[in-house]
């Protein structure tokens, strides 16, 4: 029966349409959240930049200051990676790319150290847990990154470093270029290397330091780590949402193409059915005519 074929096509078109609606909605949600993430990133800039500037100036003045977070260790036995992925999938290759970047860094490290992962985000946590590498996990932090979370991760990392659980710490995140491009990036955060001072006339200003340049520098170190992690988390979140937007946009487009193809095929089947019926009628009529003679 030809009618059954058409019904089957209708059913399939309907289900693809439903899917298309979902992907379309997810794309719009991702777009809205992305805008918010970008606003947060923008809002964090004055803090980060001032902190960097001041730290650079302090480091130039108090160059002989000593602190565990500033010491490079002679022997590197264990390296920590803060891997920032998303909690969910459906964002193209974003999570995979971040995880692969971390794995590559571990494999290519010629010192053959032990490694530990501080997993931020479920996807990375699940992957590294299977390999028994997870030292700590921070998951389900939501799409709105809070500085308090970043600071908590920072505290964990600094603690682990000071207790010599790790001798170096890197952060792996997705740097946001635009919605189509996110670059997995690895940055060393410990031991801490204070930012270099830019060559400007600011050198000439003679600051009073209260209590002293050294003391202020030391109180700023944990904050600097916190702000670096916060920044990486914001970038990674923007990247994840950008990747999800692109993935969902592609999925919506693909669904559209499938609907077009199915509709075309359905019409062909219907046409064929109609043609068959006409042929039947014509054949029948002719048989009647012949019989009538």
């Amino acid at each position, binding site marked *: 029966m030809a009618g059954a074929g058409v019904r089957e096509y209708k059913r399939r078109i309907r289900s693809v349409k439903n899917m298309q609606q979902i992907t379309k909605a997810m794309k719009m949600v991702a777009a809205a959240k992305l805008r918010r993430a970008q606003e*947060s990133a923008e*809002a*964090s800039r*004055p*803090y*980060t930049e*001032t*902190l960097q500037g*001041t730290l650079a*100036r*302090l480091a130039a003045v108090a160059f002989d200051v000593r602190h565990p977070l500033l010491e490079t260790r002679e022997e590197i036995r264990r390296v920590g990676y803060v891997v920032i992925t998303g909690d969910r999938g459906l964002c193209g290759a974003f999570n995979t790319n971040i995880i692969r970047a971390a794995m590559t860094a571990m494999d290519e490290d010629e010192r053959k150290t032990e490694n530990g992962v501080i997993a931020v985000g479920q996807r990375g946590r699940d992957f590294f847990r299977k390999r028994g590498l997870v030292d700590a996990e921070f998951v389900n932090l939501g799409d709105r990154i*809070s*500085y*308090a979370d*970043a*600071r908590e991760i920072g505290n964990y990392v600094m603690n682990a470093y000071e207790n010599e659980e790790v001798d170096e710490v890197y952060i792996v995140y997705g740097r946001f270029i635009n919605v189509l491009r996110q670059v997995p990036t690895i940055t060393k955060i410990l031991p801490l290397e204070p930012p270099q001072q830019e060559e400007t006339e600011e050198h000439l*200003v*003679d*600051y*009073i*330091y*209260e*209590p002293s*340049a050294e*003391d*202020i520098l030391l*109180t*700023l170190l944990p*904050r600097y780590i*916190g*702000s670096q992690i*916060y920044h990486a988390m914001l970038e990674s979140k923007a990247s994840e949402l950008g990747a999800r937007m692109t993935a969902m946009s592609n999925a919506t487009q693909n669904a559209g193409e499938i609907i077009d193809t199915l509709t075309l095929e359905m019409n062909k089947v219907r046409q064929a059915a109609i043609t068959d019926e006409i042929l039947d009628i014509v054949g029948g009529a002719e048989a009647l005519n012949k019989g009538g003679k």
Partner: protein
Amino acid sequence: MAENTFMLEIVTPEQILFKDEVQFLVAPAVEGELGVLRNHAPLVAALKIGVLRYKDAQNKEQKIAMSGGFMEVVDNTARVLAETAEHGYEIDVLRAKAAAERARRRLTQRDENINYSRAQLAMQRAIARLRAAGTDIDV
């Protein structure tokens, strides 16, 4: 800019909380309160958990609760960087009181699971918030 005012900016990682001209400001520096007027010499000061007070251009005194950070004064601009900061009038007094009470209980208990330095910081933050909100502290 009016004759006797200078810019005050209060910046946290999440936002610029305040940016306006003020006449006078007192910041909770590590070694005691530190006042700033127009034409202050260039200064970088470490700040502790506490209340920052300023007198705005309309001569009204305002308070801001902040967890430590630092302040940089240069060219008649005072920029305060704090990890968290809140306007006194925005503070939820009940919540701050509850936090102070919780911290006080933790501090008076003897329990190995309690991180005392953390509880102490929580206590200081709660007290700073209550003071900024203009509430008497009797916890």
